């Protein structure tokens, strides 16, 4: 469901900075349906990749074979990302807060962490430079705290400072796609608000999965379920081994 919802956010011909897992599924679903000319760029240096198998890592050889260009990572970050050529970036993380800030570094104190996470990788620069980002994460009060323990990737308000005052080129996380609903950034405050519900989900269920008093839009939309075609593609073609699809 999340992959299918994310796929709808991608317009044909857009340049997308792809992560592994669900974002990769979403991009390949979009390519297989309404966006055949989507240009997939991986931080590993593969540009215009057409993976013939679901890549397990963002450095999978299948991303290289048949791609339009392979470049060094200095070019990926300087000439593509910092240059502003990336239209959509996907992000996820252990914690997403009220302002769309993401934590992929540590749970607890940095010097003495409860849980040490992998760290930024390319996430902090994707969050800064992609024209817009889409965040994918499953609802859970621990995953959606009011404020992240560590601010790895900047959202709309960082430690009290509004994004526009930070000189960040990109628009930031425009949508947070969860397993129950879609949250969107409030146009002025930048706070994440409930914008659309999946079929059969109540606003209270979503509130229960978020660690702050969630504002609900007056006109709440219902997210259309994945089409039969989408489900068939995802289950039989794109992820037959269920590497990333669960349920």
């Amino acid at each position, binding site marked *: 469901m999340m992959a299918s919802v994310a796929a709808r956010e991608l317009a044909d011909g857009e340049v997308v900075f792809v992560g*592994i*897992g669900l974002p990769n599924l979403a991009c390949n679903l979009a390519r297989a349906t309404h966006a055949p000319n989507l240009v997939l760029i991986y*931080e*590993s*240096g*593969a540009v215009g990749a057409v993976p013939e198998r679901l890549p*397990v*890592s*963002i*450095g*999978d*050889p299948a991303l*290289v*074979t048949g791609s339009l260009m*392979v*470049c*060094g*990572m*200095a070019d990926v*970050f300087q000439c593509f*990302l*910092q240059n502003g050529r990336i239209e959509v970036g996907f992000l996820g993380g252990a914690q997403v807060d009220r302002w769309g*800030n993401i934590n992929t*570094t540590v749970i607890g104190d*940095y*010097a*003495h*962490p*409860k*849980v*040490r*996470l*992998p*760290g*930024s*990788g*390319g*996430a*902090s*620069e994707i969050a*800064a*430079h992609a024209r817009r980002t889409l965040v994918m994460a499953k609802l859970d009060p621990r995953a959606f705290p009011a404020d992240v323990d*560590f*601010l*790895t*990737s*900047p959202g709309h308000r*960082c*430690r009290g*400072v509004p*994004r526009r005052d*930070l*000189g*960040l*080129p990109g628009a930031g996380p425009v949508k947070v796609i969860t397993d129950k609903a879609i949250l969107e950034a409030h146009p002025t405050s930048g706070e994440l608000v409930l914008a659309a519900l999946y079929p059969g989900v109540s606003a209270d269920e979503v509130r229960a999965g978020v660690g702050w008093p969630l504002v609900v839009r007056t006109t709440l939309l219902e997210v259309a379920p994945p089409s039969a075609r989408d489900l068939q593609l995802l289950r039989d073609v794109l992820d037959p081994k269920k*590497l990333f699809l669960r349920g």
Partner: protein
Amino acid sequence: MKTAIAEHVHDGDTVVIEGFTHLICFAAGHEIIRQRRRDLTLARLTPDLIYDQMIAAGCAKKLVFSWAGNPGVGSLHAFRRAVEGKGPALEIEEYSHFGMVARFQAGAARLPFWTIRDYAGTDLPRVNPQIRSVTCPYTGEALATVPALNPDVTIVHAQRADAAGNTQIWGLVGVQKEAAFASQRVIVVAEELVDTAVIRADPNRTLIPGLVVSAVVVEPWGAHPSYAQGFYDRDNDFYVAWEAISRDPAKLATYLDEYVYGLPDRAAYLARNPGLTRRLQARAQVCAGVNYGF
């Protein structure tokens, strides 16, 4: 490999085994473990399984990195135990990928720093005082800087090189060129040793020139469980298996005993992994050449 590591990797060195998913030289990492190097500062964007093994083996004093996970699988548990205070201590110095790439660029250009538009709003500069800033002499805006990284030794795995170290790589090239030029010493480990004529036939394919290379080692399958485009596929099953191995210190110790300490070299490692080469051997998909005539 034994001689190259013995001569060029010393206790206390800053060591870089680069390669982004592709061409990570596990053979060199294993030899460093076997030779029991100590107090190394290990630097790489993604520590990957090889640095997790070297941390577990006690080679590392410090880790410099930007993403420490098992791609698409889970955690590097030896690393996590160290950082979470459940194992031997390990200093860390942390950047983002762009920050690490920029550190190698500065090192390769022999400049003391590199400028990037990054880190605004993040907590990273608060925990890493090496992330600083400069004021643009034209616009007056503040931009982030990272310091140059100039390793004592960098180890690069490649598809082919000649005896002088002129090295050609295709597929993902990561930051190998920058790391090699930034380094005091460079060890090239090649799947295939080729005649210089092969290099000269396609000079645009050369990523690292012999004049920066200190030693050339020929080690087929030396990157496994990482991969070499056109030679063998990534061993994703082993990356998945590592989750369980590294989670249990006893299992990890057993792994090191059986696959590293207990073996003399990579040839023995391949013998110890029957069916490996058959399972991962790349199929042929050769591109056409181009005309260099005039």
